């Protein structure tokens, strides 16, 4: 176990290093010049050169990357080119909102996805099953931007059940979580359905049925706990999908998380913020996968860590 953890940690570090190198290189190769974004349109060539020098952007790639890495090791992500604030501060101030949204989204997708999958499996082959599966398909394919605006229009503007965007109370959290959750719910419904069908075919379920147990007892006490385990283990892997989704969903709902920060930074070629958000996201994904793998044997003893 310790061996395994050590190996995985080193792997994770290498992945993060790779991510930082690739992102840094891509941003370096970008035809857009960040110095001109900072210097503005009235700047003289000398002002542009001065700024380039001060930011060290006149240095060769290797030197720039090395400087970035050495600062990174001490936890310094640099200062935003446009906002001039510490990137760490900007990310830390926005991270709680994104994490909250992620928790809300996971709850939504589990609640919706698992119940849909469960019902579909139990009613397998019926019209209910087919309707649910079509619905899950729509959920998976619907663009989040559209889903978000639709939910806003119906539940916030028309029905006034929830506020129109913003951040602060649990009521603000519902619609963005739902928007993000609907995508995942589609996947979970499908996974849950097949996992449940699989379990319902097992001998011990047949035995339970032969004993004359009530149908609800078979489903909820015997089948569900076994069917749900492999599905739950997927959450860690989901984080990557969330990181992509928050950029859109945060923008629609005015949710002050790192997705919005990233989007605005990309538009302004604010390299330190782009680097910072990418690394934090990569870290979250790596951590999520690692946790999923480490926890898996505890919930499903058939899995062994090697």
């Amino acid at each position, binding site marked *: 176990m310790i061996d395994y953890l050590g190996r995985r940690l080193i792997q994770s570090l290498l992945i993060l290093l790779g991510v930082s190198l690739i992102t840094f290189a891509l941003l370096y190769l*970008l*035809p*857009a*010049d960040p110095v*001109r*974004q*900072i*210097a*503005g*349109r*009235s*700047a*003289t*060539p*000398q*002002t*542009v050169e*001065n*700024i380039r020098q*001060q930011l060290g952007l006149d240095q060769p790639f290797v030197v720039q990357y090395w400087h970035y890495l050495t600062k990174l090791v001490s936890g310094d992500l640099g*200062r*935003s080119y*446009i*906002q*001039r*604030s510490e990137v760490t*501060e*900007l990310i830390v*101030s*926005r991270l709680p*909102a994104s994490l909250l949204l992620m928790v809300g989204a996971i709850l939504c997708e589990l609640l919706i996805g698992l119940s849909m999958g469960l019902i579909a499996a139990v009613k397998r082959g019926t019209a209910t099953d087919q309707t649910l599966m079509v619905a899950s398909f729509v959920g998976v394919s619907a663009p989040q931007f559209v889903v978000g*605006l639709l939910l*806003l*229009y119906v539940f*916030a*503007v028309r029905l006034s059940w929830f506020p*129109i*965007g*913003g*951040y602060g109370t649990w009521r603000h959290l519902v619609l963005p979580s739902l928007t993000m959750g609907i995508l995942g719910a589609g996947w979970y419904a499908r996974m849950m359905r097949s996992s449940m069908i699989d379990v319902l075919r097992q001998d011990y379920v047949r035995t339970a049925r032969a004993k004359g147990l009530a149908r609800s007892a078979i489903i909820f006490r015997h089948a569900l706990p076994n069917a749900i385990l492999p599905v739950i283990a997927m959450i860690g892997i989901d984080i990557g999908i969330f990181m992509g989704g928050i950029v859109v969903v*945060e*923008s*629609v*709902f*005015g*949710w*002050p*998380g790192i997705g*919005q*920060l990233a989007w*605005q930074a990309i*538009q*302004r*070629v604010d390299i330190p913020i782009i680097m910072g958000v990418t690394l934090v996201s990569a870290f979250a994904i790596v951590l999520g996968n690692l946790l999923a793998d480490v926890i898996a044997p505890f919930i499903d003893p058939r899995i062994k860590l090697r």
Partner: protein
Amino acid sequence: MKKFLASTVAASVLALMLGMASVRAEDAVDPNAKQGGAIIVTYKDDVATLDPAIGYDWQNWSMIKSLFDGLMDYEPGTTNLKPDLAESYEIAPDGKTFTFKLRHGVKFHNGREMTADDVKYSLDRVTNPKTQSPGAGFFGSIKGYDDVAAGKAEGLSGVTVVDPYTVKFELTRPDATFLHVMAINFAHVVPKEEVEKYGADFGRHPVGTGAFKLTEWTLGQRLVFERNPDYWHKGLPHLDKITFEIGQEPIVALLRLQKGEVDVLGDVIPPAKFQEVMADPEQKARVVEGGQLQTGYVTMNTTMAPFDNVKVRQAVNMAINKARVVQIINNRAVPANQPLPPSMPGYNKDYKGYPYDVAKAKALLAEAGHPDGFETQLFAMNTDPNPRIAQAIQQDLAAIGIKASIQSLAQANVIAAGGDKAGAPMIWSGGMAWIADFPDPSNFYGPILGCAGAVPGGWNWSWYCNKDLDAKAAEADSVVDPAKAGERYKMWSAIYDKVMEDAPWAPIFNEQRFTLKSARMGGADNLYVDPVHIPINYDNVYVKDVQ
């Protein structure tokens, strides 16, 4: 030294030249305005910084003007200069020395009195390369600027503190735009002790002399401005509090305004909803329309064949159906025929421009040796409505045989292509188009049409460089006497007429700005589409439902 005019007189004369009545700053308060109340304004993008030396965004431009003041400002809702922190000013006859007398008793938000030392400090700071100010270049005419920019001197030798209430500027050349330069955000006055206290974070802890103070800034969520009770301009501001809610998608902000949760849309009415809003008489009545100091244009790279031939450029000017392009954006613009927008002094009302004439355009193209047209590329920014506009232009060009493929790219990439001599044959400027920094005709020339901008990384994307016109521009800007402003504007009109003869651009339209406000908002309409306090003049608007 003989001084020929004293300030308030000069301002009045200048105002008269602009055809507007002169109003003294103290008198400019709306007598119907009610005091008090709080409003909510929304913006999509984050406020990057509130440091006047650095901020250069749509969202923060007017916020900074409400937190800080400069020596000069404009009468609310207009382009008429007036003294602000300066009480009066004098211009030497040679146009190279400006002396400002400061108001007494103006206090920073920290309680200290503002003096001439602060003015000098602020200008030394903004021009110092370490500040990395995007506006440093505006101060190029001040003596000693080159040394400061090159890092050879710490302060501008041309700025002298005569006494605590007098500051003198010496310029290297007569500069008719200098009073405007003293009004832009980059010249706003900051207190040294606060800048040193917060260092690079001053932009998050702004301390100025302005009408409002920043009392809360929750990153990515909201900023709260509260009235500065010690504001030197008695009777202003009218509002007690403004809350800026950030990160609001324009369409969501519109829905909230329609429900009464928001008072003013900081961003434009979303294009997709524009017709719906305008079709509803109740909402339409709350829409404020105003001209912007903006021109959208197509640049043609004059150093690249076949655009090195003036006939080809003229043909392009005649081939584009500007009225149709304006329709594409729901008539939120007026067709343009010259670089200057209509609300800019120096705009030539008598100039007719190139007519939309496909047959003549084809003939010109044939004369230029391209009877069958040619293939080229049209660069455009990739956000709506720019690709649609580019497509309309593409179709118009196809009608005379020019096959332009559209390169739809992110803003920064289009800017990069334009700044590269061999980068882009044609660029549609939308989304990056020139919005004036100050209301003076010279502002549309230097960086975007003059030789100085036709350098790698510059903004003169047509690479048009006419040394003769550069000399004429310098000559026009040396006419400093405010009494001769009309003459000077005529000189500028002539310069732009000549530019149009050479046709490095095809001017397409001048955008109109449409702002939607709630029913409780009061104040003259032009405060909501202020040409200088962009987008809204926060100091002068008020709410009707107080008292």
